[in-house]
């Protein structure tokens, strides 16, 4: 590979990309090329329609050969998008790929400015800076980091389950960590799923069992991640396994302990039934729970809380000896190469919109509550009833509760239209109630979704277009007495209506998990302003994050329905597998290095390294930098008081020349 400057002479090739109209529409590309051509050392300066296209790349390679270029600068889009493309092109031309510098004149220039003259001037100075800087570039080699083949999947909802199974089926070892006592997530609470109306349990339960039975999957429920360190291919993760006071290996799921608990009746709100039923301190989250073992709620169990209980559960368990009050919280450390975060969402708290009366009027329920009511294993055994036990004669469904709302959440939760129509159909199926859906827009863009909307219309479900103003219990007419009154501007009819109903169902939207910020920090991810985990690229890298080896799937990335969550989970698993099967990743050679002869051994740099890559060599009395541990932040470089630490790709003189270059105003 030609890495030498012929006779030390720098020969730069400069290319400015039109990106069709994207850049050329705002930047005078030929003028920039002419300007750069005059800078000493620039041998070739061209503008071209699409530099990233094959002919564009070929142009660079040809010039390297014909003009003996030893530096290449391309002004086009963001380096985060195409730096690799052009480095590869430079390498294919026979140069070390790091004799290349990219100038961002699209995202940072043509797309954000409106004055052609100004945008062109900016492009010139940015290009000038790159030309100044690239002179200092040196040949660098990428290092290879091996990838640990195991994967951690965080979150045991449908996304996490699917990702774990996909990886497990491919022969990869997976740790699936779930915070709750059972996997299954929100999907396990659903009765049926749209648009096919197949039963959620029927399609989910087999997958949950498969997880438990899978030889490649280690399932840790009732566990949380507390620490993550390392980097792509080499993560060390500490998992906190909370005591469930029941030995998972020994419990056979007979549930006799629950029956024999000194609490004769359930007393505490059952999480799975969203508080619509009561459970005991010892309980199983739901009949199909995986793992199918009981759990003891430490905040409710008399024995755990006070140590004073007859422990009837122990007696019931007898020689199975599964109940173990001595269990302690345990920290387990595992090593994995990739992490898939599928931590899901939380539902909007309907109390935040007091005018809808949730928490005030008993017959205002949320969609998930209705989901449990309609479910045959739910608290009413599938009967949709009002709080007083009567079946409702009329049901109103309010959409966009906590979605598409400037006062609460601005985003569309994407599933509520379909979810509500599904519930509307189920209500029609289970009762003879009239159902009215209050909507702003019906969004049914998935496969078979519009047809589902049609079906809802045909089944006599009424649709009123308008955001509901309020739900009240005061009557203005005899037919309103004893009912909940929905006040809404019917925007199709063009007037304000009062519609009395027996039951109101609020389609609460999705929100990021309450601890999303903590989780994000744990895995070094970014969040959008709304709090959803940020994908690396909205279109081209939808399950990757800015941290290599950390992928996201399901609703933690943004609201989505089951098919989309599953698709993302599969994609995340595939991304992880791509890394695992390659066996290594190439690391950007932007590491810091110490020039030993220059180092005075002042130790200023040592505590600054977040990766403890710098240590003190007692024999040499100088700092020692382990480049394998260095991630290239450059903090030590900036701090070295004698300028003895340098950074590949970000050398002081490169940056100083860049400063000079960007200030070369024209």
């Amino acid at each position: 590979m030609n890495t030498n400057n012929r006779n030390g002479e720098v020969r730069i090739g400069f290319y400015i990309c039109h990106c069709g109209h994207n850049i050329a529409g705002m930047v005078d590309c030929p003028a920039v090329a002419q300007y750069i051509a005059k800078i000493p050392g620039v041998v070739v300066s061209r503008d071209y329609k699409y530099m990233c296209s094959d002919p564009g790349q070929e142009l660079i390679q040809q010039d390297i050969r014909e003009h003996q270029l030893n530096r290449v600068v391309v002004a086009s889009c963001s380096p985060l998008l195409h730096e690799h493309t052009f480095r590869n092109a430079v390498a294919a031309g026979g140069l070390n790929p790091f004799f290349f510098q990219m100038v961002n004149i699209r995202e940072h220039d043509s797309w954000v400015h409106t004055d052609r003259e100004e945008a062109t001037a900016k492009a010139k100075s940015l290009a000038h800076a790159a030309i100044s800087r690239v002179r200092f570039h040196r040949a660098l080699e990428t290092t290879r980091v091996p990838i640990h083949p195991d994967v951690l999947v965080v979150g045991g909802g449908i996304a996490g389950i699917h990702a774990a199974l996909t990886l497990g089926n491919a022969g990869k070892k997976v740790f699936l960590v779930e915070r709750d006592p059972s996997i299954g997530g929100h999907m396990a609470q659903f009765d049926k799923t749209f648009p096919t109306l197949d039963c959620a349990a029927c399609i989910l339960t087999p997958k949950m069992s498969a997880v438990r039975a899978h030889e490649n999957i280690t399932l840790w429920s009732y566990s949380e991640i507390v620490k993550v360190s390392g980097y792509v291919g080499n993560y060390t993760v500490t998992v906190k396994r909370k005591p469930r006071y029941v030995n998972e290996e020994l419990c056979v799921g007979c549930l006799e302990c629950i029956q024999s608990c000194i609490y004769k009746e359930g007393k505490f709100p059952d999480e799975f039934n969203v508080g619509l039923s009561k459970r005991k301190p010892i309980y199983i989250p739901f009949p199909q729970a995986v793992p199918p073992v009981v759990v003891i709620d430490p905040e409710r169990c008399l024995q755990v809380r006070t140590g004073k209980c007859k422990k009837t559960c122990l007696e019931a368990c007898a020689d199975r000896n599964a109940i173990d009050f001595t269990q302690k919280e345990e920290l387990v450390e595992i090593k994995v190469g990739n992490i898939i975060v599928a931590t899901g969402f939380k539902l909007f708290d309907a109390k935040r919109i007091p005018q809808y009366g949730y928490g005030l009027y008993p017959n205002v329920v949320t969609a998930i509550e209705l989901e449990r009511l309609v479910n045959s294993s739910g608290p009413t055994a599938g009967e949709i009833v009002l709080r007083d036990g009567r079946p409702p004669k009329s049901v109103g469904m309010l959409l966009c509760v906590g979605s598409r709302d400037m006062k609460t959440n601005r985003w569309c939760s994407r599933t509520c239209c379909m979810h509500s129509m599904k519930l509307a159909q189920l209500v029609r199926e289970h009762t003879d109630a009239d159902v009215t859906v209050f909507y702003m827009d019906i969004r049914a863009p998935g496969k078979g979704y519009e047809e589902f909307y049609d079906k809802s219309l045909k089944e006599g479900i009424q649709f009123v277009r308008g955001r509901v103003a309020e739900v009240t219990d005061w009557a203005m007419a005899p037919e309103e007495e004893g009912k909940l009154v929905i006040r809404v501007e019917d925007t199709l009819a063009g007037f304000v209506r009062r519609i009395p109903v027996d039951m109101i169902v609020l389609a609460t939207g999705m929100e990021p998990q309450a601890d999303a910020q903590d989780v994000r920090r744990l895995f070094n991810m970014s969040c959008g302003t709304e709090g959803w985990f940020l994908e690396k690229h909205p279109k081209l890298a939808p399950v990757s994050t800015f941290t290599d080896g950390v992928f996201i799937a399901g609703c933690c990335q943004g609201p989505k329905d089951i098919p989309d969550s599953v698709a993302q989970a599969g994609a995340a698993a595939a991304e992880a597998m791509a890394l695992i099967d390659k066996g290594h990743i190439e690391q950007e050679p932007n590491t810091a290095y110490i020039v030993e002869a220059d180092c005075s051994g002042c130790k200023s740099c040592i505590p600054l390294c977040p990766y403890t890559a710098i240590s003190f060599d007692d024999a040499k009395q100088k700092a020692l930098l382990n480049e394998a541990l260095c991630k290239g932040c450059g903090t030590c470089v900036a701090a070295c008081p004698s300028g003895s630490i340098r950074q590949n790709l970000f050398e002081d003189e490169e940056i100083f020349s860049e400063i000079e270059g960007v200030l070369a105003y024209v």
Partner: protein
Amino acid sequence: MPDKPKISFYWCSSCGGCEETVVDFAEDILGVLEAVDIVFWPVAMDFKKKHVEAMPDKSIVATLLNGAIRTSEQEEMARLLRRKSQYLIAYGACAQLGGIPSLANQFSRGQLLRYVYEEAPTVVNEAKTRPRTSFQNNGHTVTLPEFRNVVRALNQVVDVDFYIPGCPPTPKITKAAIGALLEGKLPPKGSVLAPDVALCDQCPRKASKPADLGFTQFKRPHQVMLDPNLCLLAQGIVCMGPATRGGCEALCPAGNMPCTGCFGPTSRVRDQGAKILSSLCANIASKDEKEIRDILAGIPDPVGVFYRYGLAGSLLRRKVSLPVEPDQETP
């Protein structure tokens, strides 16, 4: 035997300490005198400017000029000696980087003159008399050089070949430099004739420096009984050692005082003050903005601490908002 190489010494805006270094050669001065011919040294010998003017250009092998350039006279002498010398060597911190005199670059000429001739507590000058560049008396004209607005390092006035750092330079590095000069073993033009590794390398306290300084406060030497053996930074004292070129053999730390940075930065650093700031601040043990501010309050005069010997030679050179005032005239 051909003529001995001609050497000259000159001082500009400086305290005289650099001259003392030559005196501190003690008996070694004899060796130097044997090897060279000193043709101009106003401090010690009676030569006049006209003697220098009479010398052919480049006839002096080397001039060691100390002191910053503040007046028109200094500027003129610097140019004269530049013309007459093959090598012009900036000798000492003031010539190299502006030195202590260049701390005056924080003030305008007017501010300085007003303070010195009117406001200083020891001054009695009711007539508010100020020096003038020219004064007539009894038919005679007495002149003074002009006092410039800006204090400059030597290389901001004339081309400089080499730098010998220090306030003052030690006899050892001076002798080494003269030796190299006589033997023709000079490094590339522009070099600083001192080691290019920071002072910690030579510091007797080096071993006592902890790996994690984690500053929780900064103190000034008079505020604390200094442990004579422990790294001064570990005692919360701002020591410029990590950002300062070695070569003095850590005279100040050895004398239980922190390094104040007189040898200037290493060749890899453009701005000594910025670098020590970067290193010290990064190592503050706080994440709270207010606490950080409180800790930094222990350094009340950052310019004076970080740029004690090099404000003129720093990236900013001078308080940027200061005016350039016209030549001072009789009030």
